[in-house]
């Protein structure tokens, strides 16, 4: 699709949908974060697919994947008491407050964006493709551009983000381009199960912080000291008949 026919998906939305995705009032120095409710997550991959579309992610690459806890895709495990269990872990950049990927980057291409909610971002121009960051990231969420990006249909790069150059590393930006427009990331907006809560981790009265406190939100690989800004909410307790 030619560049000039592109319409911002945000602008194209009906007002009601824009309202649904609006971040609302924002403090001067937010610390953007997210909670993912694994009780509500249904493993549908909608967030991963819209991420691919929103960010023009080429074939073979995913910024956001849905892991099935304990086993292969959609395969349950046998739990402690012999019952079957299955739940999902949507996994993308954790936007750590202490990101190991940044520490190893020789060109400072990866940085904590203090102007935009302290998210971990990559300046693609400065990336030299050494992939130290990929080795350093304990979450395995960074992907490398080995060649020319390929799309399912030529010319149908519908996303609103510049394609990344060959030889550079890319990852989830928390839809920075949407945040700037006052809209939540597309994975949050699109989640049909309403499993994602986006907000300011420094706002003690916000829905995000309250949910993390009430539900005892946990971070992935907390022991690594990376201080992720993404939290996971545990499934509710089951009642027997």
């Amino acid at each position, binding site marked *: 699709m030619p560049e000039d026919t592109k319409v911002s998906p945000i602008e194209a939305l009906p007002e009601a949908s824009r309202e649904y995705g609006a971040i609302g009032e924002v403090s001067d120095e937010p610390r953007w974060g997210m909670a993912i409710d694994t*009780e509500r997550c249904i*493993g549908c991959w909608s967030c991963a697919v819209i991420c691919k579309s929103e960010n023009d992610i080429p*074939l073979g690459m995913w910024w956001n994947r849905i892991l099935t806890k304990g*086993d292969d895709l959609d395969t349950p495990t*046998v739990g402690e008491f012999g019952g*079957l269990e299955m739940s999902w872990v949507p996994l993308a950049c954790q936007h750590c407050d202490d990101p190991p990927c940044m520490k190893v980057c020789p060109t400072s291409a990866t940085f904590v964006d203090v102007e935009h909610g302290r998210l971990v971002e990559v300046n693609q121009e400065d990336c030299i493709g050494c992939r130290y960051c990929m080795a350093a990231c304990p979450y395995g969420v960074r992907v490398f551009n080995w060649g020319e990006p390929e799309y399912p249909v030529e010319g*149908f790069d519908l996303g609103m983000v510049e394609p990344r150059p060959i030889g550079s590393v890319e990852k989830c930006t928390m839809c920075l381009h949407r945040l700037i427009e006052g809209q939540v990331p597309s994975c949050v907006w699109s989640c*049909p*199960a309403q499993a994602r809560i986006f907000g300011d981790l420094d706002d003690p009265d916000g829905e995000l912080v309250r949910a993390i406190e009430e539900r005892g939100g946990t971070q992935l690989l907390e022991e690594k000291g990376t201080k992720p800004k993404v939290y996971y909410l545990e499934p509710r307790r089951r009642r027997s008949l």
Partner: protein
Amino acid sequence: MADGPLRVAPPPADDAVVVVRDVWKRLGTTQALAGVSLEVQRGQVQVIMGPSGCGKSVLLKHLVGLLRPDRGTIHVFGQVPGSGYVHKGANYRAAAVLGMSHGTSFDYNGDLPMAMPITFGVQNAEHEAKDWANARFLLVVGANPLETRIPDAHFLFDAAANGARLVVIDPVFSATASKADTWIRLEPGTDAAFALGVAHVIWREGLHDEAFLRTYTDAPLLVNESTGKRLRESDLTEGGSAERFVVWDERRGGPATVGIDRLGMPDGVEPALTGSYEVRLANGARIAARPGFDHVRAEIESWTPERAAEVSGASPEIIEKLARAYATEKPAAILMGGGANHWYHGDLIGRAYALLAVMTGNIGRSGGGFSVYVGQYKVRVPTQPWWYPDEIKPPIISTIYWVEGRTETMNPAVPYPENGFKALFLTFSNFLLQSPNLNRVYERLREMELVVVVDPQMTETARWADVVLPATTWYEKTDLVATPLHPFLQLQQPAIPPVGEARSELDIWSELVRRIDPEKWRRYFRDVDEEGAIRMMLAAGDDPGGPTEGITLEQLREGPVRLRVPDPDIPFKAQIEDLAPFPPVSLPAPIEATQVFLPTRRIELYKEEDRFLELGEQVATHKDPYDDGVHDPAEYPLRLLSPHSKWRIHSTYSNNPWLEEIHGGRPRVLMHPADAEARGIRDGDEIEVFNSRGSLKAWAHVSEAAAPGTATLPEGWWSRYFLEGKGVNELTSSAINPIHEVWYVPNMWAPSTGWKDCRCEVRRA
């Protein structure tokens, strides 16, 4: 979907573009087409393009030539019209004006839950999805909304957050089962036994709602012990009405009569629900009669939890606990899906679950109900002026008869064509993949002189067509849509212009009708476009209290508009609150067509029509799956289940490259480790799945998620993804249940396909 290598969208030419198979030579058109060097091998597809006069119109005129009714009928098949009243409606309109027959889809899809017309007199009726959140108890049976109702799944979590209990019944440990408070694994196809066991406990412990049964159902209506038929006033007194039924008034100790114009009981009458009574007929004879519910009582008393457990595989304890919780935690909703409905005896399964909802008075209440969520069938606006212009209606034939031919038990109202079928015109359908008993379907296909497919994609069906007409996707055209789960009308507005030479179905039909019968084209197609059709339908329902009262096209352009239905939308509200007789209307059928399903105009737990009596199905009961009688369980020990997949909508998006990256593009057959081990099969192995109807080769997925004794292969995979075979429907059955032929109203009381009623064996490939 809108683009890609399989899009049927040839580059621009000056005229309609057709894709042709060599069958045209059989039709004797080789001469006319010699100029375009049409050297096509069997099964190969070519696109015909070229300058005017090269023969393209000749092809279309041969379609015209086929329109001679003396040589048989052209059968049009399009999928459920609820998902697009305009373009799917264009099929009906064209069939009506050109004298073709039109096929049904809701019944053919196996989605028509025959328990609904049998019990409630309606095609189907369900609580809108948002009402799930109002339930205190959710019983999900044979349904997997987390994978197949993805946008609505959150309502289950909303209910759970409000303290509701979620119980899931499924042989497979599904995504939905993983969220349940309690997951109950049943032997596939034994739900009726299980539900009757639950009913047994509810009855035994007195947890049922007697007032509900008396007021709204046929429970108190007396049945003549010797004939099995209900007593009428006319049986009791000379000149009495045949439309007044008889109850036993316990207060007076004698018979009383009730009419059909209003639910409830005459003042002061306290009808018996059980027992046997002597009644004196007009001719002086004394006969024994029992209330309809006494027949239900006898049946459920025989289903002790122990017996129900033995058949269904659930424990007697869980049956008892479930019964108590379901009957006391109100409102309680039953959400039934295709897994329970897609059986030859799916009607009995549905009737058994419906019995639970009726016995506990959970009908017509927010948060309660017995809802069967299947298909996008629902016609929510009066479509008649658009579909059936000048009240001309095409003969509508249950598509299963195209496959099976006439049956001995076929209802005489089925307009089966006198000279048979000679051509098939398919739209909105991957018919040659998604039909049951595919090898038989392919045999029928050989009898067709012409197969035309209208599709945006080069599907398995399009590959077999003589002519493929490139269609627009829904991203490229205007339509009016609604769904059963959300009572909103929505204008589908094009997001992109038509790709290549693709045209909408309405455009295609208009063009065909113009060439075939210019006079009819001028009258019925020339001056109407999508918006005209929509205005026509909106106007037809724009009466005070009508479904589209005050709804305009202009409003729809701004966004979805809620239909004029109660909020939340709950079936049978008028019956429960205002004592209006059953059934409510099922569009597009007139009420007269469906009223006959319920001669009592009440919820019918007892059926008196001869065939129900002959087959012993007066009340809900359990029968073993049909395929057990076709395939010896010793030889074919596994049940083959073919549920919907979250990676597709049936076969649509089967070839989506992004989704292929997720699921790997390999059809996997889910098997239990014990079954796999017994056959020397490991996870990922190539395997053959077969029965007497067909076979396929795919890959094994070995997991505890599978029920022992089952093989599960989600439907919708295109044939080309298999190692061998056309797909799961080579094995599925097209058997017709004669109960489904007692009446005939297309898509409403008609043969419903039993996809899951299928045995097979698996071996290493």
